[in-house]
């Protein structure tokens, strides 16, 4: 195919520029990848903390087993609820003794009430949903009191919102920077071949024909640059795990999407750079 031939000729003509483009694209995407890695790990960490959001419903003393089971079933049926666990006074005592060893001899039996520990499904762990569920549980006749650490849930939710907003803002900025750098790099390779483009137009090549090798070029550089960036990000995550804290790496589909994103940026960058050049000549 002639576009492939032109691509090979172009790469051979300017090997240094091609290498420079790939390295530039790789580093632009690496910066984005590093950010992604940090964002991913913060998100995971926050997710783990969020899983601890629970509503604890203390039951009246002497609640009959049938009433308790019926109430548990009712709570389990709430659409927001992931799981309900019954904690008997004995279990609560054992747990308290384990968690607060230094006070273990202070605790006596029957000191703690029986309770339900209700965990919510992801997406329902924000203060509003937690409050609604807690109110509904409190209305059950077997329940004496409900606790869910309202202040903590609200603070945590606020933190999560700030983290998300900062993540999206920073992510967009990094992506924009990567797109601009890659666009400029591709524009350089277009300008390096300006004379060739002029001759192509002179002898009657269509815009589509002229564009094709550049699109292939952009795609190829995007894929190679994206792959390199992925490799660098992976190395960074390994280094972080070894020397700092255990870090999660992207799942394979996300990693593949990152490389595909690089290819797409390369393709779009080329399309814009060549399109702009062709409009000017």
């Amino acid at each position, binding site marked *: 195919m*002639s576009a492939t*031939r032109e691509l090979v000729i172009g790469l051979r*003509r300017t090997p240094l520029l091609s290498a420079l483009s790939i390295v530039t694209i790789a580093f632009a995407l690496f910066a984005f990848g590093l950010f992604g890695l940090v964002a991913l790990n913060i998100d995971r960490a926050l997710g783990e903390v969020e899983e601890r959001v629970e509503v604890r419903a203390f039951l009246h003393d002497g609640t009959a087993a049938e009433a308790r089971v019926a109430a548990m079933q009712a709570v389990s049926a709430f659409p927001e609820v992931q799981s309900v666990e019954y904690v008997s006074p004995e279990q609560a005592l054992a747990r308290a003794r384990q968690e607060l060893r230094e006070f273990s001899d202070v605790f006596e039996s029957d000191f703690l009430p029986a309770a339900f520990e209700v965990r919510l499904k992801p997406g329902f762990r924000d203060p509003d949903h937690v409050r609604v569920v807690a109110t509904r549980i409190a209305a059950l006749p077997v329940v004496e009191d409900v606790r869910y650490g309202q202040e903590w849930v609200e603070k945590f939710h606020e933190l999560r919102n700030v983290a998300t907003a900062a993540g999206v803002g920073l992510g967009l900025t990094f992506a924009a920077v990567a797109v601009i750098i890659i666009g400029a790099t591709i524009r350089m390779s277009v300008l390096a071949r300006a*004379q*060739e483009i*002029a*001759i*192509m*137009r*002179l*002898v*009657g*090549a*269509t*815009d589509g*024909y*002229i564009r094709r090798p550049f699109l292939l070029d952009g795609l190829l550089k995007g894929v190679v640059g994206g792959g390199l960036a992925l490799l660098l990000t992976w190395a960074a995550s390994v280094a972080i795990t070894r020397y700092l804290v255990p870090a999660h790496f992207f799942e394979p589909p996300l990693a593949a999407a990152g490389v595909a994103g690089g290819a797409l940026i390369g393709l779009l960058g080329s399309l814009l750079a060549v399109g702009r050049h062709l409009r000017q000549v």
Partner: protein
Amino acid sequence: MIRFTNVTMQYPRGGIALRDVSLFVAKGEFVFFTGASGAGKSTLLKLVFMEERPTTGEVRVGGYQSREVGRGDIARLRRKLGIVFQDFRLLEDRSVEQNVAFALQVIGAPKASLRTKVGRALAQVGLSSKAASMPSELSGGERQRVAIARAIVNDPFVLIADEPTGNLDERATRGIFELLSEINARGTAVLMATHDLSLVRRAGFRTVELAGGRVVADSGDGAPLLVEEAD
């Protein structure tokens, strides 16, 4: 075949390059365009290969009209034209043969006929023995011959030459002119812009003289606009 009707060309920042130019070039004609620098010769040629569009008036080349053509049409028109410039415009990193073949490759010409056509064009310009040479190894006259080979490889109906001998010595100039005359004798119209009045006088072809963007003299027989189009 080529018709200018009341063509005025004004560059956005450069003033008026052509004023109310009307002329007709018949099939197979050889026409010199003369005049001082800035007279409008190059602009006139650019209008023929539609690098520029007239500000007012109309240019018709073959079946293409300046008012109607799109970018795709211009590409198709140029496949039927050959264009050479004073500065040759060769690709320095490709051999003579590759430079000529380039014109066929980029329009998707079938591979089978490529070698034959390139060989024929190089033979026509007398450079068969230099097919494998690089442009940097050639003299100015030879480089211009490569450019001409590239321009004629696709059998154009018009060859446009903008000061093709401007960078050449007298001997090379004569050679290039003889080559253009031969190409013309085979039926291709030639439009050549030049400063070289001695060449123009010797040749005895139709000469259109431009001054300040106007046609001030046209040695063509008969009023151009009275000639009916042959296309």
